[in-house]
């Protein structure tokens, strides 16, 4: 991949939406520019990433790390809710959800 695709303000708006960050419209161009520059600098990875090089999945050659199916201490309800912005009936109260997942 020798050319970086250009990043437009629409691209930034799309990324912001995917990442759930309300980027103000006046900052879209600014981010677009910066992302473009950074992507230009990092795109070089594809130069050396040939097919015969395996992707590194992990710095450690570990496999099969498991734990026994045995109960461990939980947090109490109070601890679990301790940082919550809004609580009701021992549960986390969250704003209106529009769509079924």
């Amino acid at each position, binding site marked *: 991949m020798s050319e970086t695709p250009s990043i437009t303000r629409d691209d930034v708006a799309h990324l912001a939406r995917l990442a759930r960050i309300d980027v103000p419209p006046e900052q879209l161009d600014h981010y677009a520019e910066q992302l473009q520059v950074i992507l230009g600098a990092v795109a070089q990875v594809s130069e050396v990433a040939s097919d015969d090089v395996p992707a590194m999945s992990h710095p450690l050659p570990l496999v*099969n790390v498991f734990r026994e*199916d045995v109960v461990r*201490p939980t947090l109490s309800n109070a601890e679990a809710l301790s940082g919550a912005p809004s609580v009701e009936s*021992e*549960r986390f109260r969250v704003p209106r959800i529009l769509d*079924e997942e």
Partner: protein
Amino acid sequence: MSTHTAETVVPYDDVVARFDPVLGLEVHVELGTATKMFCGCPTEFGAPPNTQVCPTCLGLPGSLPVVNAIGVESAIRIGLALNCQIAEWCRFARKNYFYPDMPKNFQTSQYDEPICFDGHLDVDVETDEGVLTFRVGIERAHMEEDTGKTSHQGGATGRIHGADYSLVDYNRAGIPLIEIVTKPLEGTGKYAPEVAKAYVAALREILRGLGVSDVKMEQGSLRCDANVSLRLSPADRLGTRTETKNVNSLRSVERAVRYEMTRQAAVLDAGGRVVQETRHWHEDTGVTTSGREKSDAEDYRYFPEPDLVPIAPSREWVEQLRATLPENPAVRQARLIADWGITPFEMASVVNAGALDLVEQTVAAGADQSAARKWWTGELARIANEREVELADLAITPVDVARVEALVGEGALNDKLARQVIEGVLAGEGSPDDVVASRGLAVVSDDGPLLAAIDEALAAQPDVAEKIRGGKVAAAGAIVGAVMKATRGQADAGRVRALLLERLGVSE
């Protein structure tokens, strides 16, 4: 907002005459492990909200997952039971999307490296052409974690639309799930709904036999999403599919598939295009309604889970697990067909009712196989259906059923009484003998039922009654005979005669 906009449908026979259905079934199994998939929190049902949570399943900053060994073991056993290949090396992956029931806003799942893949399950469907066998291809079975539970508040219906806010309980978040995905299921034709149901039923039996889950559809430990598409002919490309959720019983699977086929046919007939979307099944009204528009381009930005290391099940371990599998269902069924001297059709009825284990256990408890089958696929299946529970959840055991059958065999009960005994056992009145005793059903020479039978016979043969009153005592034989017939020979004939004459005010 009304959820039921009436949609046009094409009569089913018409649909299958002109379209070729293709199905895809996605089943999620909640494993019955003691702890969650990635942490040591307990998984018991019904605990107070947010009491079975820890930093990991709450997704608190800094927390890390550690894989439950039994979760992996169960996944492999399920794969083996479904004739799958077991991966030599695979990883977990993050499926990234935002939703309040997801503590990390990504689900730790598997993407392009599922632990099990490329299997199959043969299912039998009873049809008027006999028992037909369909081979359902299994694309993959992989490990993932469940989400928390949201309950929507402030609206009228308790459903999302119109709710002001929601309350979230993360007790369920992180419970191990195995997702089993079929390959596109083609060639089912008009039997598509039955095949779908039979597949889920068969899968459920297998899972139950493995002991990996309690597979209760109504409780959500077995969830099914049905994908349906239509095309004009098998030679054509696959049509656009819809995914139907909220299919909470075997009955719903069949009905939902059938409905979707008829609905999609109507859309296509009208020159429209089927929208690729998620639909919601309504058991009460028998329709699906539109949910979220589902796009295949949903960008989950999958990448290998960096907090977990790869899973590389050794072939030795896989073979050890294979040895723990219960008898292959097809082999077992063939064996029982031979032992019991029944037809494949009859076996299919038993399997599709989810009754095979129960029937086998009832036979082991001493009952005749025919009677055992009769009870479980007949009266008991009817009751289970009515109460919308699983057969295995009824408060009656194979031993109980065998006992009832024994009492019938002894002549202590007739069929009608036996049903009453069953009813009593289900109502929690005790064992069959307890019910017989407490309800006084054993005393077959009890005058009550005899008198009732006598009156019935008299009413049915008024001319004979007249004769007896007229002094022709010998004519009483016909009434006695009728009563003996009515009570299937379990009444004392002498007593019947005496009661009859007393009834008519005639002396011997």
